[in-house]
């Protein structure tokens, strides 16, 4: 007689961490197995950054604007990742039949979302770094970093708030059907416009900038530009310390909201039968 090895069981924090690890694994390993992403995720988006930078060059923009485009292009990667690999992911999982399995499993949906965020953040970080390095080399961008600590703080707060927003919207998208796909599709160029991806958001005026500050990228980008370029503070929207405080608040608000919303909407979706709903 042979004995089946009993699977290692986890609960509580152990299960939470194993779920994060388990959900981030396919994203990281998928990236390593599928080498074409190097071309589609790094080289081609870099070309779009080059196009905007060359447009600035063609109309005689000062050199730091080319750097603004490089940083904006790199940060675009994170927005795209949040949009397509976080927000609309639960909709996609529902359509492909994985979502009922997630709900049936003892794993927390919050941990699954965090796993998606960690895996996505890792792969996107590689892409963003590649865009910054290559873009800076191509356009000879000079960075004058006034405070590395502030720069890192802004980056991590921005990422925390951004992925918190992603988790929050993912729970809303759980209730949606095909609308989710179209809403995600819509949230690219209009967001690039209001968040100042390719130009200082200050140029849009105070109220538009204030409204756009709900998107963490707006203040994150503005603060990073102010810290990284010699003329950055002159073109900044708000004081960097104020922007850091707002980003920290957004991080806390979005993370807490995502926690409560996912719980509420998960219950709602189960009660209304939306988990297996398929409006193809």
């Amino acid at each position, binding site marked *: 007689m042979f004995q089946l090895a009993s699977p290692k069981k986890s609960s509580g924090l152990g299960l939470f961490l194993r779920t994060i690890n388990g959900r981030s694994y*396919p*994203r990281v390993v*998928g990236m390593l197995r*599928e080498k*074409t*992403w190097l071309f*589609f*995720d790094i*080289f*081609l*988006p870099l*070309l*779009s950054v*080059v*196009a*905007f930078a*060359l*447009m*600035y*060059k*063609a*109309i*005689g*923009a000062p050199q730091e*604007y080319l750097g603004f485009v490089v940083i904006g292009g790199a940060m675009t990667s994170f927005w*795209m*990742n949040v949009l*397509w*690999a976080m927000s609309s992911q639960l909709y*996609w999982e529902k*359509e*492909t039949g*994985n979502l009922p399995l997630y709900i049936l499993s003892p794993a927390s949906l919050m941990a699954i979302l965090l796993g998606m965020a960690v*895996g*996505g953040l890792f792969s996107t970080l590689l892409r963003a770094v590649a865009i910054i390095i290559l873009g800076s080399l191509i356009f000879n961008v000079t960075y004058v970093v006034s405070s590395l600590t502030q720069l890192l703080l802004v980056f991590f707060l921005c990422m925390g708030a951004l992925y918190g927003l992603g988790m929050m919207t993912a729970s809303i998208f759980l209730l949606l*059907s*095909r*609308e989710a796909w*179209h809403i995600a*599709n*819509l949230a*690219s*160029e*209009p967001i*690039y*416009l209001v968040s100042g*991806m*390719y*130009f*200082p958001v200050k*140029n*849009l005026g105070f109220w538009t900038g204030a409204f756009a500050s709900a998107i963490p990228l707006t203040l994150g980008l503005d603060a990073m530009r102010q810290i990284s370029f010699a003329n950055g503070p002159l073109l900044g929207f708000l004081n960097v310390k104020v922007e850091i405080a707002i980003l920290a608040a957004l991080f806390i608000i979005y993370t807490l909201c995502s926690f409560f919303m996912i719980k509420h909407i998960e219950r709602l979706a189960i009660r209304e039968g939306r988990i297996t709903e398929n409006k*193809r």
Partner: protein
Amino acid sequence: MKINESSLRTLKIAAWLSWQIESNWTDPFLFAVYSIIKPVSAAFIIVIMYSIITQGDFSSPTFAYLFLGNALYQYVPALLSGVSWSIIDDREHYRTLKFFFIAPISMTLFLFGRSLAKFLAATISVIITIFFGVIFFHLPIFPSQIQWGLLTFASILGILNMLFFGLFLAGVSMITVRHSYFIGEVVAAGLLVFTGALFPLDFLPVYLRVIGLSLPITYWLELMRRILIGHPLPGPNLMSSFSNNELITILVVTNAVFLVVGYLGFQKCSSIAQQKGFVDQTSEY
């Protein structure tokens, strides 16, 4: 690829399907708003970038050049992704690609039909963007001076080219997994550098200009701009050295090459996908 009654039916039904997929998730008004906001925002990004640097000198020919280039370029991502995304959508989302492959239909025409909704949305947004440009930024476009016959001919050539380019990307999608981003849109964003949509090719290093000069989209954009505003960008630049007739000839020749490469590339890739069992494979990450 034979064109007969059956293939026209395929094209018609695929077009109807694409329209339903793209539009019936909401009411027509919201769909119209949705179709307009994205391209108009893209146009405004360019307008703001330009106005920051030039202090709002919208009367300059450079502004007309980049505004029209940006407006017309909306066709490129729409058609490239319209054709190529259908493969991922039907394979991994609707899971119907395998049925289309075993059905007695032309996949090429089916994919062209599937791009119709995006083509229509792009056409509406190109018209709206140009209309915005004329009304608010006084672009020098006068309907009485436009050569409508040439505009139609150039438009057909450009659309055909982008359809077959999209077909080639559809072939690539057959043998690659689902990326988080649309291959068509990403390739279109990349091509923005080489086609002179936002800046004259002269700003590219000499060895990169060759890529731009080998792409039909470059000549199509230049020709369309000239038809609309009546003249090339003033001053010495690479594309201004071509006459309209030269542009048309080059466009026809490069188009023919792209048609053959797109069609054969798709056939080759779909053959590989069928042999390796990729037609119904999904990527769940």
